[in-house]
């Protein structure tokens, strides 16, 4: 069971991520109306939002330390937020500004914050190998830092995932693999992508424990992830967790979602995980509505400030494009 502090931390991280994404959904449309042009506006390019997937981020990252490495995929904001990435500079990066994490070179799919050992990437399952490597580095250095590798359920069928799972299992490395099963890989449902229903069953093929978390349950994930993180920290090896989660938005903003059954999102929203966590927290009796509200308000204010920071920031000079190709 999470402590009061852990509960509040998760709740705040989830509210922050949700508000971040909802704000982004609005900001993203600035300059894209009346005609939607993906390259136009305040925030151009592809935009993958994770509203609904907050439990995956908060329920795992609550167990982590800054020195632990997290690799996330193309849908990274909720995880970055839970890992403690600098929100101002992250937002400035997404706005393509000079004060962004990477001075605007990376953008929304390439957020790097070495202060908290966070990275993400745009190629499916590309972060799995680096997570294994960071864990190997920890082992070689005798540190008890661990790695968490996030992928989507669609990414589970990419060769890179298999190789990383086997390496981690073989070398008993401190890695926790988290599969965010939001039921879709763009327009392809899991049933048309994965030969089995529960991907965590593949864990046995790599000599590691597999865990399945049903229905986006933050508290269930908290327990399972706590176990997996502790196991890794003790040097006993990796784990694989699959979490059934919800994707509220389209695959990317602008996705017509013609493939999606009518009413699916509404049904998911009816059991929103943030609401559920809040309810459980308050019912637990230790946390008051005022405390929860304060956490939520803090979260929103931080997000508002980040957007303001990004908006006010300058664009890089064009020639800056030529720098930092090499170290």
């Amino acid at each position, binding site marked *: 069971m999470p402590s009061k502090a852990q509960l509040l931390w998760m709740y705040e991280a989830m509210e922050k991520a949700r508000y971040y994404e909802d704000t982004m959904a609005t900001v993203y449309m600035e300059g894209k109306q009346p005609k*939607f*042009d*993906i*390259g*136009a506006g305040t925030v*151009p*390019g*592809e935009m993958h939002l994770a509203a609904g997937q907050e439990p995956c981020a908060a329920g795992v990252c609550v167990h982590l330390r800054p020195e632990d490495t997290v690799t996330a995929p193309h849908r990274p904001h909720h995880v970055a937020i839970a890992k403690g990435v600098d929100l101002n500079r992250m937002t400035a*990066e997404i706005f*393509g*500004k000079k004060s*962004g994490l990477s*001075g*605007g*070179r*990376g*953008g*929304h*799919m*390439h957020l790097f914050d070495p202060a908290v050992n966070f990275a993400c*990437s*745009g*190629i*499916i*399952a590309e972060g799995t190998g680096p997570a294994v490597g960071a864990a190997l580095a920890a082992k070689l250095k005798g540190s008890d830092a661990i790695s968490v590798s996030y992928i989507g359920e*669609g*990414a589970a*069928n*990419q*060769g*890179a995932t298999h190789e990383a799972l086997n390496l981690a299992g073989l070398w008993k490395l401190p890695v926790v693999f988290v599969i965010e099963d939001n039921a879709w*890989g*763009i*327009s*392809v449902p899991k049933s*048309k*992508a*994965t030969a089995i229903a529960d991907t965590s069953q593949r864990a046995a093929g790599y000599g590691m424990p597999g865990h399945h978390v049903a229905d986006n349950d933050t508290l269930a994930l908290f327990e399972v992830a706590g176990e997996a993180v502790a196991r890794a920290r003790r040097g006993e090896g990796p784990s694989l967790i699959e979490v059934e989660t919800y994707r509220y938005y389209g695959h990317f903003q*602008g996705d017509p979602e*013609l*493939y999606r059954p009518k009413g699916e999102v509404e049904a998911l929203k009816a059991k929103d995980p943030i609401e559920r966590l809040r309810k459980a927290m308050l019912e637990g009796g230790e946390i008051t509505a005022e405390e929860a509200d304060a956490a939520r308000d803090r979260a929103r204010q931080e997000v508002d400030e980040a957007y303001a920071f990004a908006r006010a920031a300058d*664009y*890089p*000079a*064009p*020639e*800056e*494009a*030529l720098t930092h*190709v090499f170290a």
Partner: protein
Amino acid sequence: MSSNRQLTVSRAMAEAIALEMRTDPSVFVMGEDIGTYGGIFGATAGLLDEFGEERVRDTPISETGFIGAGVGAAMAGMRPIVELMFVDFFGVCMDSIYNLAAKNTYFSGGNCKVPMVIMTATGGGYSDAGQHSQTLHATFAHLPGMKVVAPSNAYDAKGLMAAAIRDDSPVVFMFHKGLQGLAWMASPEEAATAVPEEAYTLPFGEARVVRAGKDVTLVTLSMMVHRAMDAARALEKDGIDAEVIDLRSLVPLDRETILQSVAKTGRLVVVDEDYRSYGLTAEVIASVVEKDPGLLKAPPQRLAVPDVPIPYSRPMEQFVLPNAETIAAATRITLGKAG
């Protein structure tokens, strides 16, 4: 519909595929989101409805697996069209492409055929950053055994796609996202063209002189044809008469047309959206001077991405991509009219 009907490139591609699928039961399509979604860049729109899930087959995110499967199916008598969603993803599956699809014909001494199309989206300009904006023309063209095409407009796209499907060798069909005529991405007007309704093919290795001119030769392909044409129109105002050549394919490469043009103009500008070094620009220049360095009256100019990953932020991205202004400026330099 009249035969003057205009099609976007994406519709022209889908139409070419549909026409072949109607007449040849061995043609089928595989890839990520090519079914219900119709292809992220629209190249397979409408096919699922007409041909069903068996022949228009959504795949898992397993490019090595399904491109390898395409090779196996092709060797077993089918004519698969597989989509690699973005060319940037080649790194996860290049073995299936360059070592398998491209070499099995040779390895079998011609006893096996691999009639397969690998279609893939190229290009940037819309802030999709360094793993979703590359062109990578030379990455494919450098390696033997595959034909490589990169059309600039709908008419060419339809004819080259039909030719690719009917070809008994693997063809890499590189289409530029920004030419597809999608509702959600800007596209030059000239990319959409009149397209005949019936099936037709265009030969590989025949460049097109898009604009005849006598002062300087601009050699390019794909999106950059439109940028070069914009440059040519601007240069015209200054009395500079540029010839613009659309290569249409990288393999085979129509060196003859380039040589004829340079023999006439004596000045060469090569424009490519791929990286600069070890790329198309060098190949075109070398192809000219290995014939005769005296053909060039002035140093040739190369415009391409300056060996940096494509940056995300708009000012930086626009800076690294060739455009009408930079092309015109380079042309003026080679004509000694800079300044």
